[in-house]
């Protein structure tokens, strides 16, 4: 220590300290910075962005602008994140066929690889929700369905209906049916709040709760055989009333007509 202390007034000491400090900061940065960011210029990612840019220019830019800045016909995509792209394009909603109260789900026209490229390009506009990984939306605990059900009835059922059959909103808008929706897309919808849906970011609804909701929706819409027989669309008493009138009373009246038509005839002497 004496040696070091003796040279602390050396003319080059400041330079050495500076170099040392730089090395430490750089080293720490290299050690702790997110790997992907550090590899931002790695060829695969930038290639994806380049490819995405080409696809975007062809399929999206007429409404959203060449750089996703938005226009009178489409919103800005800055900050929507890759999750929004994966949801909108992955469910066929984008590219939209025509403007309207709501863009419907339809046939998906891009491959998943192309969707990923588009997502990479849009994500490069600014930070936003990232496409979830499989373990984020795949539940492993059997309790998740019950907990998710409670969360679903609190947060989702008022628009999507108790069984995820969907429902009406104002002016021709609607909450779509959740039947047959990919778990990833359910998760992304909660993250990004597409179209008329509010978003449920991790700050208001933690990841674990989203996972539980996904588990409940999967259970209700596709995995569970209905204990009571035909579910009649799971739409509540309206379809029950129609069924009761048409098939219940209808059958009874048909039988009444049959019984009345088959009677003992008085003997004609």
């Amino acid at each position, binding site marked *: 220590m004496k040696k070091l202390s003796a040279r602390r007034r050396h003319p080059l000491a400041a330079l050495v300290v500076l170099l040392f400090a730089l090395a430490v900061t750089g080293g720490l940065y290299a050690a702790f910075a997110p790997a992907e960011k550090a590899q931002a210029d790695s060829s695969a990612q930038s290639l994806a962005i380049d490819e995405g840019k080409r696809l975007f220019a062809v399929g999206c830019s007429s409404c959203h602008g060449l750089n996703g800045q938005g226009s009178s016909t489409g919103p800005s995509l800055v900050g929507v994140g890759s999750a929004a792209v994966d949801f909108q394009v992955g469910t066929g909603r984008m590219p939209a066929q025509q403007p309207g109260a709501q863009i419907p789900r339809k046939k998906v026209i891009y491959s998943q690889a192309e969707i990923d490229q588009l997502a990479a390009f849009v994500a490069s506009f600014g930070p936003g929700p990232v496409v979830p990984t499989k373990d984020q939306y795949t539940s492993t605990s*059997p*309790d998740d*369905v*019950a*907990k998710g*059900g*409670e969360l679903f*009835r*609190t947060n989702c*059922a*008022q*628009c*999507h209906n*108790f069984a995820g*059959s*969907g*429902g*009406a*909103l*104002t*002016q*021709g808008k*609607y*909450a779509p049916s959740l039947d047959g929706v990919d778990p990833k897309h359910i998760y992304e919808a909660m993250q990004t709040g597409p179209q008329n849906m509010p978003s449920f970011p991790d700050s208001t609804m933690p990841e674990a709760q989203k996972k539980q909701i996904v588990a*409940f929706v999967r*259970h*209700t819409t596709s995995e*569970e055989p*209905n*204990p*009571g*027989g*035909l*579910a*009649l669309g*799971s*739409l*509540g*008493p*309206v*379809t*029950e*009333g129609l*069924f*009761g*009138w048409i*098939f*219940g*009373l209808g*059958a*009874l*009246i048909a*039988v*009444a007509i049959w*019984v*009345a*038509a088959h*009677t*003992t005839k*008085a003997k004609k002497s």
Partner: protein
Amino acid sequence: MSSASSATTGATKPSSTRAKPANKGEAAADYLDGRLGIYSLAKANLRKIFPDHWSFMLGEICLYTFVIIILTGVYLTLFFTPSMGEVVYHGTYAPLNGIKMSEAYASTMNISFEVRGGLLIRQIHHWAAIVFIAAMFVHMMRVFFTGAFRKPREINWLFGFLLLFLGMFDGFMGYSLPDDLLSGTGIRFMEGAVLAVPLVGTYLQMFMFGGEFPGNDIIPRLFTVHVLLIPGIMVGLLVAHLILVFYHKHTQFAGPGKTEENVVGMPLMPVYMAKAGGFFFLVFGIIAAMSAIATVNPIWAYGPYRPDQVSTDAQPDWYMGFSEGLIRVMPGWEIHLWGHTLNLGVFIPLMVFPMVLAVIAVYPFLESWITGDKREHHILDRPRNAPVRTALGVAWISWYLVMLIGGGNDLVATHLHLSLNDITYFVRTSFFLVPIIVFFVTKRWCLGLQRRDKEKVLHGRETGVIKRLPHGEFVEIHAQLPADKLHKLTAHEQLQPMELPAEVDENGVKRKIGRLTKLRAKISKGYFGEYSQIAKPTAEEHHEITSGHGHH
């Protein structure tokens, strides 16, 4: 004691001299007759004649579904716990495991998933209720459109109406009991309606719920009313309804040999005992099959009620749907006065709701006031021959359907890809316009059918046989209707509009004519005036045309 035995054995002879019973069956009947007097009852009623028509069996559907509801309801009470005490679910239905719920809901889950046959019985109970009220509606339509409510059956019409009214409310209370998310929303709706009553609303609400919503009282209270009070009244009304049917004898459609004085048909025993008994099992079978095929009120999917949760498609069962429609389309008007709120958006629908039903109840009395007809009627009208009554009935149905569309506006929107707001505006307009349009269309339709009947009577049936006359003209041969058809088409009587008495009487004194009488004359003209019925062909007209040569 028994008039039957005294008639056969003679009044002076003591009944002990009656011949020894021939066999055990007769002995048993004799034993019962001595104590219950069944001979006279049986003699009077077992051979009671009933006419045959499928529409006369609609009331039977009501009766049988009611019996099914009572039987299944008793089974359900064995396992249901009418309590709002909180429990944590640990049953077989995994998706609700560990969820807090009321005992009412938990016991309904238990009925649905653990009790043997529980879910089937629950579904039979619920489907039968849905069909019961639908059948009552159709039964009432039959009675209405055929004019069977006329004297002497006005009181029985009122009994029927009360059964419908009570049935609706008992149904509402019944599906409120499981305390699932949907039924809790329904009770909340009811609470809102009670609160909207001016002045007393808040007191009524506290009285019903025993505190703030939801409290702990409402389900036990609804349970008592649902399983005891209302069914008790309904059974009483039902018995009275049936006694009156026996007492009045059944109505019949016009036909050869059928008069206001007789009933043409089959005896109760054995024909209708067999038919009606068999029909009961058919009804039970169809309801049971329906309940085995389709879910009704899937409470496990709704989840337990929590006041902070709600699901879309929160509609009542169909018979309460029109009240939902009234609320949904009513603009949310409010009046604020002296620190109080008058919630017209709920209060006006709440007042329209009973009026929609009350017009059904009062109609027979209204019509008898207009016609001034005090005679008994046992021959039914064909709906076309009472065009104004028929048009009023169909207008009411259309009005009711408009309200039902309002009640299901969200499903209409999603399934027909329409805007919810447009449907609301449509229903608001249609509430006033559609019944009026339907009234006129139906009336014209009836008149058209009357013209057709007249045409058929005078010119016969078109045979489809084309004949070429010597000078080249083609004519279609018309065949005369058989006599029974002619009778059917001309049996109805046509009332004439009421004439106001002359302004001055025979002494030249100005007569006082009350406003009500003038109104009555006006309505009577609307019912039976020249634009409201087509004069039916007379025998002379028929004779003149048919006796001559051929075809027009």
